[in-house]
């Protein structure tokens, strides 16, 4: 048998195609007679659509279809993963800048673009809200029509929903020190290198839709309902996305393109520009007020957290982000009294959606920073205060949820060691350390099929989307391990709802655990069949045979799985088929609809140097340690953590949308929306894992890949605080913002003093 690959770093399945340009993305799919589409949008956020004149556009040579709301069923069909509030195309009114009012499909992209330019829309700009303050003003225009949520007492406000999580008694809690601050987190966007792309084509009395989507089966459900088709007649093809980060979880323009294809009677493709992806997906900006109570010995007495998330014009999955993102807001600590109050606030901006970390980085930024403030007031080392409060394995740190599922102290101590916590600092340098936690999936359902073919090679059918996280490789490693097949003899089939069995979704770092277990079960089913075969072939009772990790053990000897399979299948050959299912049912009484399958726990520590003249922050060293249970593929785990850390540095140091007074994104595009390049990386970056094989996934794995983003901001700002003496509570920490804070501080004398990190 081949050596085990679990815990090593075999090459990524599909990796060559991904880096060489051979991988086929939606934009590359060749289809006969496909029309290329462009969207027509208005030059402001909220406008009343008075009339749309398509006649000139229709005259452009090559233009085959110009479609507006008038060409769609009435009333306008609406959809959404949480609320069915989003129209297929803007009807009567646009609600954010970039919302399409018409779509033009033509033989070429140039003709479509020319056609789109010649669609004349008469419109009147309407008052709109783009900030929390404006949206919460009692006189603010309503973003959502109250009739969309008739029984909701909040329907006449821009508050979509309120979320409460409480335990203990805050009012009765005794605190010697109370620290209260307000923190803000900006609007940032996913910036997947592959922009969203969609194709729809009439197919077999139904429709085929290609989309770079994370949840093909959820999309299938939404399209089936909108088009009144049976699920079997909606075929969703999901080529591996070129990055997704949550921004490709849910339907965006697939319904629009599907209606266009039906109307045109031909395939229609829409590929967004990078600018249009900015207008399609983003993270919610958040303002977080935290009041933290401490006892004199540094124990957390209470956390009182109020978080307002600025979501967009339609809900998408944003309200779930608010609920689930604020829920573990008190962190991985034992806190006797907690009150979390989070609100989803609608605005006339791009609908915010899932984004790596799912609402947690915002609250984490505030709460972890506030713990540092408390440590300073109390004169307690910032590492020490975390150690004093950290939940130990089995502690019910969130009383109604899964108890602490890891030895988290190991994670914290390892990161402290790697950053050389306590070692004297060079002048102008500072260190920060922070912990991040996120609930894994609360429900899940993943089916898989594994086929062991006559020659011992394997085909795996799994509905996960491999968007770069490496899911294909993990499933292949599991099958290789269980069935004794070489990795390069394994095919992983994904991304086609007509072929691959159902999977609920690719999100919440679930796939290694949920789909991984499903694949493991499918392999176990094949192992059981091998056992029956071996019993038949060797005339031994099944109970005397075990099959494990590619090896068949008979009394007194061991066979390779192949040595049973080949004679077992006999002359006709054939194959063995195993099915797997992982089901995690919800709990209607749980605040999140279900307890966490696992927690993602990360510790990030940063050493930074600040140029006091310019406000430039240099990250001298960045360490990130994640409790992953077991790293099935070591290099992939490292790459995920490093990628998450760098993405976190984006919102920490430079990324944010800037709006103008009409709700347009001013820095729309790569020139003025800056993400970190290789030149902006920490001078030294190291990622490590804590592995105690204590996760619920295969071989003790836990989900990972979001953790290392969660607390980058808090760790970095803490390092800046120590280096300069200034606490900045608004992100990103741009040079100009740091410079301003330094100027307000004046002088340089107090930099780094009175800081426990050095004691």
């Amino acid at each position, binding site marked *: 048998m081949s050596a085990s690959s679990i815990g090593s770093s075999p090459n990524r399945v599909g990796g060559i195609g991904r880096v060489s340009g051979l991988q086929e993305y939606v934009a590359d799919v060749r289809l006969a007679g496909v029309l290329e589409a462009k969207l027509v949008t208005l030059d402001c956020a909220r406008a009343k659509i008075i009339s749309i004149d398509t006649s000139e556009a229709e005259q452009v040579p090559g233009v085959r279809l110009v479609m507006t709301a008038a060409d769609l069923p009435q009333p306008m069909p609406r959809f959404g993963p949480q609320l069915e509030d989003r129209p297929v195309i803007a009807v009567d009114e646009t609600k954010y800048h970039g919302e399409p009012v018409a779509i033009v499909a033509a033989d070429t992209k*140039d003709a479509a673009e020319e056609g789109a330019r010649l669609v004349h829309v008469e419109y009147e700009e309407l008052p709109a809200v783009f900030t929390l303050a404006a949206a919460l003003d009692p006189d603010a225009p309503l973003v959502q029509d109250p009739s969309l949520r008739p029984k909701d007492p909040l329907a006449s406000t821009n508050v979509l929903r309120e979320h409460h999580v409480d335990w203990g008694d805050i009012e009765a809690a005794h605190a010697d020190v109370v620290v209260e601050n307000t923190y803000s987190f900006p609007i940032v966007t996913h910036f997947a290198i592959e922009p969203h792309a969609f194709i729809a084509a009439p197919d077999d009395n139904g429709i085929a839709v290609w989309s770079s989507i994370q949840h093909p089966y959820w999309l299938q459900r939404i399209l089936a309902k909108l088009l009144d088709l049976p699920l079997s007649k909606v075929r969703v093809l999901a080529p591996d996305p070129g990055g997704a980060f949550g921004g490709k979880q849910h339907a965006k323009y697939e319904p629009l393109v599907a209606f266009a294809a039906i109307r045109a009677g031909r395939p229609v493709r829409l590929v967004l520009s990078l600018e249009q992806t900015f207008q399609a997906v983003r993270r919610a900006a958040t303002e977080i007020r935290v009041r933290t109570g401490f006892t004199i010995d540094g124990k957390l007495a209470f956390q009182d957290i109020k978080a307002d998330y600025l979501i967009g014009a339609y809900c998408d999955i944003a309200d779930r982000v608010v609920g689930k993102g604020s829920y573990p807001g008190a962190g991985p600590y034992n806190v006797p009294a907690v009150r979390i109050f989070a609100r989803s606030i609608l605005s006339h901006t791009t609908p915010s959606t899932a984004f790596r970390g799912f609402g947690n980085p915002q609250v984490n930024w505030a709460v972890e920073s506030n713990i540092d403030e408390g440590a300073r007031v109390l004169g307690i080392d910032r590492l020490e205060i975390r150690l004093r409060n950290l939940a130990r394995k089995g502690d019910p740190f969130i009383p109604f949820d899964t108890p602490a599922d890891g030895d988290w102290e190991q994670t914290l101590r390892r990161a402290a060691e790697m950053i050389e916590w306590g070692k004297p600092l060079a002048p102008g340098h500072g260190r920060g350390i922070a912990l991040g936690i996120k609930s894994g999936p609360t429900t899940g359902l993943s089916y898989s099929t594994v086929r062991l073919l006559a020659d011992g090679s394997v085909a795996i059918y799994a509905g996960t989307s491999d968007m770069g996280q490496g899911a294909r490789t993990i499933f292949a490693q599991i099958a290789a391990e269980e069935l004794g097949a070489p990795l390069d003899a394994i095919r992983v089939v994904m991304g086609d709802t007509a072929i691959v069995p159902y999977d609920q979704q690719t999100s919440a770092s679930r796939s290694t655990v949920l789909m991984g277990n499903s694949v493991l079960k499918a392999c176990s089913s094949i192992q059981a069949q091998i056992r029956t075969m071996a019993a038949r072939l060797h005339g031994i009772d099944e109970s005397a045979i075990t099959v494990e990790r590619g090896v068949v053990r008979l009394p007194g000897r061991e066979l390779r799985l192949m040595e049973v399979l080949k004679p077992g299948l006999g002359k006709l050959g054939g194959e063995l088929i195993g099915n797997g299912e992982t089901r995690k049912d919800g709990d209607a009484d749980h605040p999140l609809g279900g307890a966490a399958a696992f927690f993602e726990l990360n510790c990030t520590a940063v050493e930074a140097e600040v140029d006091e003249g*310019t406000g430039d922050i240099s990250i001298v060293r960045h360490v990130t340690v994640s409790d992953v249970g077991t790293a099935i593929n070591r290099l992939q785990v490292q790459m995920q953590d490093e990628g998450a850390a760098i993405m976190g540095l984006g919102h920490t140091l430079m990324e944010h949308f800037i709006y103008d007074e009409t709700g347009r994104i001013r820095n729309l595009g790569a020139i003025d929306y800056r993400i970190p390049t290789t030149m902006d990386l920490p001078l030294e970056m190291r990622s490590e894992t804590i592995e105690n094989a204590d996760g619920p996934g295969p071989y003790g794995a836990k989900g990972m890949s979001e953790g290392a983003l969660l607390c980058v901001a808090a760790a970095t700002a803490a390092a800046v605080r120590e280096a300069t003496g200034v606490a900045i509570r608004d992100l990103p920490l741009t040079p100009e913002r740091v410079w301003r804070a330094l100027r307000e501080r004046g002088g340089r004398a107090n930099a780094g003093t009175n800081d426990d990190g050095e004691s």
Partner: protein
Amino acid sequence: MRTFAYERPVSLADAVALLDSHGPSTRLLAGGTDLIIRLRDGSARPGMVIDVKRIPELCPEIRERDGVLTIGATTVMADLAANGLVRRHFEALAEAASVVGSVQIRNRATIAGNICNASPAADTAPPLLVYGAVVVAAGPHGSRRIPISEFFVRSGLTSLEPNELVVAIELPVPASLTGAVHLRRTRRRGHDLASVTLCCSVNEAGVTRLAYGSVGPKPVLEQDETHVLANPSAPDDAKQVVLERMFAEASPSKRSMRASPEYRMAMLRLLGSRAMRTAIERLAEKRGAQA
């Protein structure tokens, strides 16, 4: 992208004739790193694009003759940054060329394109001003030589006539030892548009030249005739007064989202004093090397 006529003349005369007959509706294509973006986003809609890369007189070439370095119009940033003559005599220009865009951009973007685009943030503008470059332009009436200080008019506009094009840039090799440096402010370390650019040179005669960009409609050149800046024994206060006077032309935009006027002015001053220090150090090093 909208359709346009495409011409690729192989002689300077043909290029000038095309410009002369089609004038304002033409756009010149060299590296294309600015033009192609504008063609795609629709902000440039020329009737004709004239590709100048096949014109022998504009060829990418850097040569020195009689104390003058001549840089062909289509010389790209990467070659400029790597060229030994440029690095020896015009180190700040090499530095500026080496921070334009990314590697891919520097392999395409040309020196003539960088100045003809006339962005106030053009990285090569301050060193060209400091080194006293001369722009050689060709038109229907032959060629003329325009001092770079008269070349930039305002953002997007140069003193070239619509029927003229840049053939080459000339740089007089400094007669005395010179220390110079180019500095810039960006929002990140990776490739970015500058929110302040600044070049400073100091020569043996004690003359300091300072040019800066991205803080007004065009890059500005100043010269310290008082010799105070280059004087190591002059008090800091006196130097500050001179520097302040030199920055009087700066008028950063209030509308920019890249940096506030306040921050730009503060960074201009900071870069000014940092550049002064480095230029003096470099001059001293050269003296030392010569000694």
